[in-house]
């Protein structure tokens, strides 16, 4: 865990860090649950001719939720790859400013997505959009996804602030090591 180096940060940021970490774990737990469901469904299909009905829909919705849960944590760990070849020799202060600008642009991207996807979720609720087989109300997934995008927006701001102060989540090569 890289959190140790951020111990002196304001309470709010530490709370955000913790929430995003827990969300990441929760997202992974969702993935594992999806994996189990699919395995049961495939075994059911071949052995007993009775797959879990709507297993594709479960995977689609679950996967969307899991990935959304990963996004804020990924940004807090500076997991979004950058090209650093052309700025290797630049002074640290310049790099910090450029990194902060990058994070701000990411904040804009995340903010736009939060807004638009949020609206889309509201539309789906109004039209009572349902999945084909399970008749699951799609908007319910948005209740989790949209706040995750909101957290991504916040994470963008936090990383911008950290970059300005010269604190880096991790070095980009280390982040890529996990690829």
């Amino acid at each position, binding site marked *: 865990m890289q959190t140790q180096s951020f111990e002196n940060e304001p309470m709010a940021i530490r709370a955000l860090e913790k929430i995003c970490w827990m969300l990441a774990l929760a997202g*992974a737990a969702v993935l594992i649950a999806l994996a189990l469901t699919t395995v049961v469904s*495939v075994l059911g299909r071949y052995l007993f001719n009775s797959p879990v009905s709507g297993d594709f829909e479960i995977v689609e919705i679950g996967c969307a939720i899991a990935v959304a849960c*990963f*996004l804020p944590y990924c940004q807090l760990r500076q997991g979004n790859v950058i090209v*650093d070849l052309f700025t290797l020799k630049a002074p640290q202060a310049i790099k910090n400013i450029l990194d902060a600008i*990058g994070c701000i642009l990411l904040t804009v991207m995340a903010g736009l997505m939060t807004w*638009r996807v949020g609206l889309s979720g509201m539309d789906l609720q109004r039209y009572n959009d349902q999945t084909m087989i399970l008749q699951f109300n799609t908007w319910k997934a948005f209740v989790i996804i949209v706040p995750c995008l909101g957290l991504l927006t916040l994470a963008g701001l936090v990383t911008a602030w950290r970059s300005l102060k010269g604190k880096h989540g991790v070095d980009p090569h280390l982040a890529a090591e*996990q690829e």
Partner: protein
Amino acid sequence: MSGPLIGTLCISGMLILMFLRVPIAVSMFVSGSIGYISVAGLTPLLGFLKSNPYSQLSSYSLSVVPMFLLMGHLATHAGISKALFRAANAFFGSWRGGLSIASIGGCAMFGAISGSSLATAATMGKVALPEMKRFNYSGALATGSLAAGGTLGILIPPSVILVIYAIITEQNVAKMFLAAFIPGFIAALGYMITVSIYVRIYPEAGPAGDKTDAKEKIDALIGVIPAAILFVVVIGGIYAGVFTPTEAATFGVIGTGLLAWWNGINKEEMAESLTGTAVTTGMIYMILLGANIFNAFLTQTQLPQTLAQVIGDSGYSPMLVLMLILLMYLILGCVMDSLSMILLTIPIFFPIIQALDFGLGPEEAAIWFGIIALIVVEVGLITPPVGLNVFVINKLAKDVPMVESFKGVMPFLISDFIRVAILIAFPSLTLYLVRVLY
């Protein structure tokens, strides 16, 4: 302004943002959005942003990506790499340069479970480097063979990048995986031959290791069985059409998870696997989201179609065009990561490839080009200045200077180029299994 001109301007803008340390995903998103507005207007962009992110996150064909990533992250803690290296070492260890050959063999086998080069290099490096140090291997050979061996991770299925290539070009993932098989095998063989030649020129670089008796060979082979079963179920299941790739990957996740649990994975390692999956999955989906909007914009400018038509009508020899594309990949590969490169360039290059006549059908050309492009893109992982595999291995081998590692990689680069030439000259090597089995 004409569409293609706006397209060109926005591509340049995107590259500038990227070179100024803006995350690649964000560079694509920002320049793509601005382009989209100038071509189609603000309202269509806002409409696109409303529906596209969710359809991307909830895409069934993409759901295989987080599953494979989770499987790979669990595999790094499942004790698999140790067993694989031990088995390869039991057979090759007593040869000259045997530990390097065994590492490459181990990487190839680990690559059959993990879809990532860096993870393959790092996991195998942790097991193999201490052994190589014990036998006084030169830093160049030790780190070079592991960094190169790591690139087998992405080539040998499962491979995240091949999945994504198959999705953008609307190809069958099973066929792509099948096509990667022989090139992956040739790659591993080529690297092993490279080591053998290297230690004949520099005998002190890689002395022979311990001899092993028949009992150790059998024990070591037994240790590989779980990994072999995983591979047969996951990849074999996809080849045989028993499951969709996502279904296969879920079996892989559960299997690797059980194996990790059996080998006593602890709480920290488990958390590390899960959060590691979160970071890499998040990164890949962010790039996908950015690339999506960029490509939606590019399509509207007609730039890719125009370019394909111009080049198709120009009468340039198809091979020349292919060489130029590959050369561009080599150069870009020194700067960018492979996934972003594929996502950015395939929408532009793929129509060109399809417009040219290589004496193959459109589907065969697509598969063949995908494999060759993947190999060339991956070469960037072991070339200076930002060969990530080399960095990762070099970090593990603390006492080896960076320059040594890059020197050690050079012979393997030569082997890469020879392999690419062979695969270009004989498309049937790549297509053989696909032709036979479909």
